């Protein structure tokens, strides 16, 4: 195991039953903004979930800042936040403020300090006005921003976004991306985004094309997106 900063895959294979979901012989991710594109069922989600240990490699090793995701799953998940595409399933408390506080329960013992931190996080994301609304009555766009808040409040170093804007309309998707980019720069968070939105995919330092359980192309966004378009001509 290396002590290097960043995310490292070594001879990783993920097998479900007798089906090979993903095979990555070697991969190092150090760029601040990375996007992952590719067809449905190609392995994008599996790749993202490997990074925070939600999926454990059948063979090989995945490490984040030198921590193995199997041995130190909890520590890895603490530094790698994850936002899913379905907004409703990510919120469990009746109000956004309570949900953000729930994230802090383990780390901040004092309840008033917890409330202050949660409120500040919602304010930073521009959704302080939603704090006491009923989570289940919020629009999908608002719910997704709250889901982002529940993750960001823990000050992760890595943010994994699995098709975060798929269920949002244009304006909410833009707002979401804007917030992620602004915070990513301000707080030096590495973001790894899986998406079908090629405009969003282009806003990155590096893009991976995952198809049929393999990384088929890897490099600057324009080139990789071009490859994807060629592969996808009907």
């Amino acid at each position, binding site marked *: 195991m290396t002590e290097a900063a960043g995310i490292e895959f070594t001879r990783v294979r993920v097998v479900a039953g007798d089906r090979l979901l993903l095979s990555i012989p070697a991969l190092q991710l150090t760029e601040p903004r990375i996007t992952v594109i590719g067809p449905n069922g190609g392995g994008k989600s599996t790749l993202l979930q490997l990074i925070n240990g939600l999926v454990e490699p059948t063979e090989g090793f995945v490490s984040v800042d030198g921590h193995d995701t199997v041995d130190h799953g909890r520590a890895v998940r603490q530094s790698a936040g994850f936002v899913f595409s*379905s907004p409703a399933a*990510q919120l*469990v*408390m009746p109000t956004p403020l309570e949900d953000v506080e729930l994230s802090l329960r383990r780390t901040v013992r004092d309840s008033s300090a917890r409330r202050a931190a949660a409120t500040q996080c919602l304010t930073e994301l521009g959704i302080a006005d939603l704090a006491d609304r009923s989570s289940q009555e919020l629009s999908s766009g608002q719910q997704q921003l709250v889901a982002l808040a529940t993750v960001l409040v823990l000050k992760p170093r890595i943010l994994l976004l699995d098709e975060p804007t798929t269920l949002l309309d244009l304006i909410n998707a833009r707002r979401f991306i804007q917030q992620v980019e602004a915070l990513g720069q301000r707080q030096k968070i590495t973001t790894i985004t899986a998406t079908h939105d090629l405009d969003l995919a282009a806003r990155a330092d590096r893009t991976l094309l995952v198809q049929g359980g393999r990384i088929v192309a890897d490099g600057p966004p324009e080139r990789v997106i071009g490859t994807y378009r060629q592969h996808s001509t009907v």
Partner: protein
Amino acid sequence: MRSRRRPRRLRPREQVLGRRAPGRSFLHRAPGGLKVLVLAIVTAAVLLIREPMVSLGVVVLVLVTAGAARVPLRMILVLVRRLWLLLTVLVVLQLMLNDLFTTAEVLSRILACLLAAQLLMLTTEPTELVGVLRRILTPLRFLGVRPGRVALAALITLRSIPYLADTFHLAGQQARARGLERDLRARTVPLLLGAVNHARNTGRALNARGIEEV
């Protein structure tokens, strides 16, 4: 104008739980633990005494209390409308198997318990109820019960109900769009798959956040 069947009404979202009566009455402000205790005593009394007049008395008492707390009666009685089919079946069965007196006794008992519980739900925050549940379970810690975990499960259950109601409604619409409104499978399979999917997504999201209890 051509006469035709009245158009199907658009139903508002089902809100079985999580719907509260507006207001800040004495009943809204009373501590959740006390309300649960009173409900438990009333329910136990109704179930043990088995006297239709007592049960009816409780029904009246519930309605009067609701009135005093300015809870709209409509919000309490909507429960009866929602369960009318079940209650009717019950009454018919009782009339077939027993006499009128027993039927009245059973029905009044059920109504008393249901309406009293409904009044509690309408005037208490779900989080407060979950807090009460956690306090009740705390003494069981030595048996290995983790109150925070049970409370989290209860909270997720509460949150899932409106989601499932939506999924059920959507499955019905999808079946109708395909002309399968009479097909039980077309209406239930999407609901089951949706429920499993929602459960998996919820579990993954909680796992990703490292949350095991509230």
